[in-house]
């Protein structure tokens, strides 16, 4: 089935990317996490009709993707997932906001159209930012950082355990699904009335698995608490990168490069 194998390959390819050792990969995960969040906040803080300032922000993801050797293909796949709802929300602006902002020749450019493009740009930029984060920082590293952001340990444990077992479970679902399809020729998927048994089986198996895992933990002295090593401290260059990039991002927010160039050109 496409959903399962596709998500397995998505996870795999992102993990392979995160294994690389470029400059971007070597930046401290905490720095990347903070910068990603800052970037997203700044991008979405733009008002719907202000696309000229927004375009300046294209530099950040493009430069990072090139430096981090992240291919553009996975980006398009992610956009396919993220775009439809944004597209719909944006499209409705075209219909409901038909006030002309200006004209190119005699073609009216409406505010709705502008805000449509603004939503699309924001979607692309924010999706890119998250992609860059996960493609240059492995999931365990991110989860570790969450601990240092004082997230409760219990939820971090859950993130790690869930992440660990996703591929195991996907494999299991995929073989169960194959077995099901082989015995129901012509079926396009699992019949709705069989879903109870199908997922139910999966759940019961997983209960047993959880029991085994619990046993394995117990055998190694577990008593209700995961213990982790302290994460690596940030070094000087990490601080530099953090301060400089954050500074640049803020400056970009107050300088409208697009408008500047536009006025200059005209």
């Amino acid at each position: 089935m496409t959903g399962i194998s596709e998500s397995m390959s998505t996870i795999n390819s992102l993990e392979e990317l995160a294994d690389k050792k470029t400059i971007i990969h070597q930046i401290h995960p905490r720095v990347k996490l903070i910068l990603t969040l800052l970037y997203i906040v700044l991008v979405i803080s733009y008002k719907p009709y202000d696309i000229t300032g927004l375009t300046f922000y294209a530099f950040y993801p493009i430069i990072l993707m090139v430096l981090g050797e992240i291919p553009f293909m996975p980006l398009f796949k992610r956009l396919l997932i993220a775009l439809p709802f944004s597209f719909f929300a944006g499209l409705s602006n075209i219909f409901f906001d038909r006030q002309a902002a200006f004209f190119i020749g005699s073609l009216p450019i409406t505010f709705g159209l502008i805000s449509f493009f603004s939503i699309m740009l924001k979607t692309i930029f924010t999706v890119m930012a998250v992609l860059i984060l996960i493609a240059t920082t492995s999931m365990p590293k991110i989860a570790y950082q969450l601990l240092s952001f004082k997230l409760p340990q219990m939820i971090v444990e859950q993130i790690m355990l869930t992440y660990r077992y996703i591929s195991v479970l996907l494999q299991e679902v995929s073989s169960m699904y194959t077995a099901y399809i082989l015995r129901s020729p012509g079926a396009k998927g699992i019949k709705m009335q069989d879903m109870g048994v199908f997922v139910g089986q999966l759940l019961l198996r997983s209960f047993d698995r959880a029991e085994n895992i619990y046993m394995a933990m117990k055998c190694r002295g577990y008593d209700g608490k995961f213990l982790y090593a302290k994460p690596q401290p940030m070094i000087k260059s990490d601080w530099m990168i953090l301060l400089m990039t954050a500074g640049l991002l803020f400056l970009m927010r107050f300088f409208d490069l697009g408008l500047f160039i536009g006025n200059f050109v005209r």
Partner: protein
Amino acid sequence: MLEISDLSYSYPDGHQAIEKISLNLGAGESVALVGANGAGKSSFFKLIIGIAAASSGLIKIDELSVEKKTLKEVRQRVGMVFQNPDDQLFMTKVYDDVAFGPRNQLLSDSEVDEKVMAALEQLDILHLKDRMPHRLSGGEKRMIAIATVLCMDPELILFDEPSSFLDPKARRKVIQTLKKLTMTKLIATHDLDMALEVCDRVVILNKGKIFADGPVKEILYDEKLLLEANLELPLGLQKIN
């Protein structure tokens, strides 16, 4: 080193899994525990590490009897390698998984590091330390599962089907590793050829009882005995017709 006397256990549904087993293992012995599916091997292991409670009988590890208040100590001394490494390796990084046990022993970070590195080095898998378990091959996962147990310096290790699901090369590596380990080993397996290579003694379990117990050469060469226990001669000993 391991003393078991009159051990019985039945499942919550009342089915008797283990019936009056008595067994002694000397220090450093390497014993194969064989028996058809459902013979009671897994239950037996669960009883030794105190995950399940016996309905009657005694288990002692060097004078330390296995009961609720001694479990912590028991699990320091006894390690278990699970049949399915995916059950055993639950952390997102190999290093963290191997370190899980030592950290629970509340050792300092540097002591933990020492133990983890030593275990990985001993098994020749140091290069895997920063990998994610789910991206490894079955053989690699098995070796790491062994490392997670090894780094706790157990006196006795229980192996549950250590050679299952492996390709010939990975199986060979596991066998070499088992041969090198000097602590007491109890190995539940269907792989009689491996038992022949690794163990000096074989215990056959059949329907929850000890069916035979003796040196590996005597038992695994006895075709009649093996057939009675729903087993067959090791492949290496079978005549090719």
